[in-house]
C-alpha cells in the first residue's frame, strides 16, 4: 500500500468525494489563490497546501476563495447545506471560530432540531488546531471540547493519515454538521493509506494496542504520543491498552468503559486546556459508570491552564509529552490498590 502524508490523505478524500458527488464543494479563505495557472502552480491550495489541485480539476464553481469573513462563509455553508449541497468549509485556524460561533452553535447545530427534524445540514468545517507550531496563543488552541459540548455537532479528530482519509469521507457523507480537526504538526506524518475511498464510522473507538494493566485514552495528535509511551512502558513490563476515540461527538464511551473494566486503570491524554476538556469528560463518565472497576485514581495528562505561549522553550513544556504520559501511567500503577467496596 502506498505511503501518504496526512495532507495528501485529506486532499485525496476531498478529491474522491468531489468526483463521486457533484454536490460536494469546498470554500474558504485562500484555498484557490493562483486561480487556474497552468502546471504545478494550478492552485496554491491554501497556506498548508491541503486543497492543492482541486481548483484545476473541479473549477471555480466548486472550489471557492471567499472574502475574509468566517461568519459569512460558515453561514453560507450552513445555508447551502440546507439545500442539500455538501460544502466543506476551510476555517484555517480553529482560533478563528471566535468570529463565527453564532453560525455554528446557534444555527448549523440546531437546524435539524428547530425544523422539527425536516432539515439537514450536511456540512463539514475543516480546521487546524494544536500547539507546537510556534504560532502563539491566538493560533494554537484545541477548542474541540467547546464543539463537543454542543448538541447537534459531530466532532472528528483524526490521529493519523489513514484515519484522516476515512473520517473525512465519512464526514462529507454524514448528514449532520461535522467539525473536522487537523493538527497542524501532523500534515507531514506519513503512513500507508489505501488509494480507494473508504469510510471510518463515527463513534467507534480504535484499539491501537491491547494490554492488561492500564487503559490510555488519547485524542488526536496525543494518540501518537500515547503509543510511544506505551512502547516504552512495555519494556518496563507495564502493558497498556491505547484507545483512540476518533470522534468526541459521538463518543464511544462503551469501548472506553469496557477497557477500563478489564484494566482497572485509566489515563486520559488531551492537548486541550485542562478545565472542561475531553479528559475531564471521559474521566467523569468512567468514574460514574465504572467506579467499581477502578483500582487506582484516574489520571489526566493535559497542558497547564494557560494560553499557549510562543517561545519554543515555553511551548515545548506546555504540550503533554511522552514522558509525562509515562509518568502518569507509572503513578497509577504505583497507587495502592483500592479495597473493594
Amino acid at each position: 500500500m502506498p505511503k501518504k502524508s496526512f495532507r495528501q490523505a485529506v486532499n485525496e478524500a476531498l478529491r474522491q468525494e468531489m468526483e463521486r458527488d457533484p454536490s460536494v464543494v469546498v470554500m474558504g479563505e485562500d484555498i484557490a489563490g493562483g486561480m487556474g495557472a497552468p502546471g504545478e502552480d494550478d492552485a496554491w491550495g491554501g497556506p498548508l497546501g491541503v486543497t492543492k489541485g482541486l481548483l484545476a480539476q473541479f473549477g471555480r464553481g466548486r472550489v471557492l476563495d471567499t472574502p475574509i469573513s468566517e461568519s459569512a462563509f460558515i453561514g453560507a455553508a450552513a445555508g447551502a447545506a440546507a439545500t442539500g449541497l455538501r460544502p466543506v468549509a476551510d476555517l484555517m485556524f480553529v482560533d478563528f471560530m471566535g468570529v463565527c460561533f453564532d453560525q455554528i452553535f446557534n444555527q448549523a447545530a440546531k437546524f435539524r432540531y428547530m425544523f422539527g427534524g425536516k432539515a439537514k445540514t450536511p456540512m463539514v468545517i475543516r480546521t487546524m488546531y494544536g500547539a507546537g507550531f510556534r504560532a502563539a496563543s491566538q493560533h494554537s488552541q484545541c477548542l474541540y471540547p467547546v464543539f463537543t459540548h454542543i448538541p447537534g455537532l459531530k466532532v472528528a479528530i483524526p490521529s493519523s493519515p489513514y484515519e484522516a482519509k476515512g473520517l473525512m469521507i465519512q464526514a462529507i457523507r454524514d448528514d449532520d454538521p461535522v467539525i473536522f480537526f487537523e493538527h497542524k504538526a501532523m500534515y507531514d506524518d506519513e503512513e500507508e493509506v489505501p488509494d480507494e475511498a473508504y469510510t471510518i464510522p463515527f463513534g467507534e473507538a480504535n484499539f491501537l494496542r491491547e494490554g492488561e494493566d492500564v487503559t490510555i485514552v488519547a485524542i488526536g495528535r496525543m494518540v501518537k504520543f500515547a503509543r510511544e509511551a506505551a512502547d516504552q512502558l512495555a519494556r518496563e513490563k507495564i502493558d497498556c491498552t491505547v484507545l483512540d476515540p476518533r470522534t468526541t461527538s459521538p463518543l464511544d464511551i462503551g469501548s472506553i468503559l469496557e477497557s477500563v473494566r478489564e484494566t482497572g486503570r485509566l489515563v486520559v491524554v488531551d492537548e486541550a486546556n485542562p478545565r472542561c476538556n475531553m479528559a475531564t469528560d471521559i474521566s467523569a463518565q468512567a468514574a460514574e459508570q465504572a467506579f467499581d472497576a477502578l483500582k487506582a485514581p484516574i489520571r489526566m495528562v493535559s497542558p497547564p491552564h494557560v494560553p499557549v505561549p510562543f517561545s519554543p522553550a515555553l511551548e515545548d513544556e506546555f504540550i503533554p509529552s511522552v514522558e509525562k504520559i509515562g509518568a502518569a501511567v507509572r503513578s497509577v500503577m504505583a497507587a495502592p490498590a483500592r479495597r473493594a467496596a
Partner: protein
Amino acid sequence: MKNAAPLELHVPEPPARPGEVPDFGWLKIPPAGSVARPDIATPPNEMRGHAYTLIRVLDEQGAASGPWDPKLDAETLRRGLRTMMLTRAYDERMFRAQRQGKTSFYMRCTGEEAIGVAQAMALDDRDMVFPTYRLQGLLIARGWPLIEMMNQVFSNTRDRLKGRQMPVLYASKEARFFSIAGNLATHLPEAVGWAMASAIKHDDRIAASWIGEGSTAEGDFHHALTFASVYRVPVVLNIVNNQYAISTFQRIAGGEESTFAARALGYGLPALRVDGNDFLAVYAATRWAADRARTNVGPTVIELVTYRASAHSTSDDPSKYRSAEEPGRWPLGDPIARLSGHLARLGEWSEERQARLASELDSEVLAIQREAESYGTLASGPHHRPATMFEDVFKEMPWHLRRQREEMGS
C-alpha cells in the same frame, strides 16, 4: 417569471495569473494635485466623490502640487525618508534572520512604508494606534527602539512580551501601540471603544486603526463603522489596500464593483481614497482626518491604495499565485524612491546621499541585531523560563495554576 438561463455564480478573477503579463489599466490614476481639498467640516454627503478618486500630491517627476500638499520642510521630509528606509532595512535584516533560523516567522511591509511612517508623523505621539502586523513603520516612526522589536522577533530573554507573542505582533504601552491581534479585524471595535472612552473622559487624544482590504469583509469592520458613525467617535479608520490578502486578489474582498473607501458612505462617514505610496498625500490626508476627529467633527475612513511588493509572510511564495512581473508594473511606484526623487528635485537630496544613508542604516540595523543576538535567538536561546508561562493569566495566580507550576518543576 422563468429564468432565461440557469443561474450562474460570479467568481471574480485576478487581473493576471502566474505566467501572464499583468496590466494595471483598471486602476484610474488622476493627475497629482487635481483632487479638491474640502474643509474638515464638510458634511460627508457633500464629498462622496473623494471615496472614488485618488488623492495625489507627487507626480511622476517628483514635483508636489495641489491643495493637499502639506508643504513640509526639507528637514521633516528627510526624517520621513530616513524612517521609511530604516523600516525597510530592518525588514530585510529580519527576513534574512528568519531564513537563517534565528526566528520562526517574519512579515515585511515592503512598498507600504509611507503608510506607517507618514501617518505616525501626522498623528500626535500621544494618540493611540491600533495597527495590523504590517505597520512596523508606525512603531519605528514613534521612536520605539529596534532592539526591543528584535528581542521579540528572536524571542530571547529580553523579549518584553515574555515569549508569549509571535514575532512581528508587537505591543507597546509606552509607544501607545495596541497589541496586534492574530485574529483579523478584532481591533477595530476596540479602537472605536478606546476613542469613545477618550470622548467620555473629555480627553484630547484620538485613536487610529488600520486594517487590510481583505479584512474589511469581517463583521468587526462594519460593527466598528456603525459605532464610529453613531457616536461621532474621534477615530481615524484606515484601510490599507495592498491588493492582496495572502494569495487572494482584492476583487475577492469586494474591490471589483466599488472602492474600499466607499464602504464608509453607507454609514454616513466621509472617506478619502489616497495614493498610499505618496508620502505627502498620505501625510496630508491623515492630518485632515486627525483634525476632524480632534475638533469633534467626527471619524473618517481613509483607503490607502498601495501594493504588497513582497510575500505575505515568510510562509508563502507569491510566484505560486501571482505574476512575477506584477511588482515591477505597479503604477504608483515605490514610496521611498518617490520621496527621495521629490527631495532631489527640491535640491535637498542626491543619489549619492541616498546610497550613503542606505548603507549607514543597514550598518545601524546590523549593529543592533548583533546586540539582540547576544541576548539570544529563537534557535540558540537563552529563552524565558518555562515557569513564566503561568504569570499574567489572571491578576492573581489561582491555586490550581500555582500547583501546575510546581508540578512542572521549573
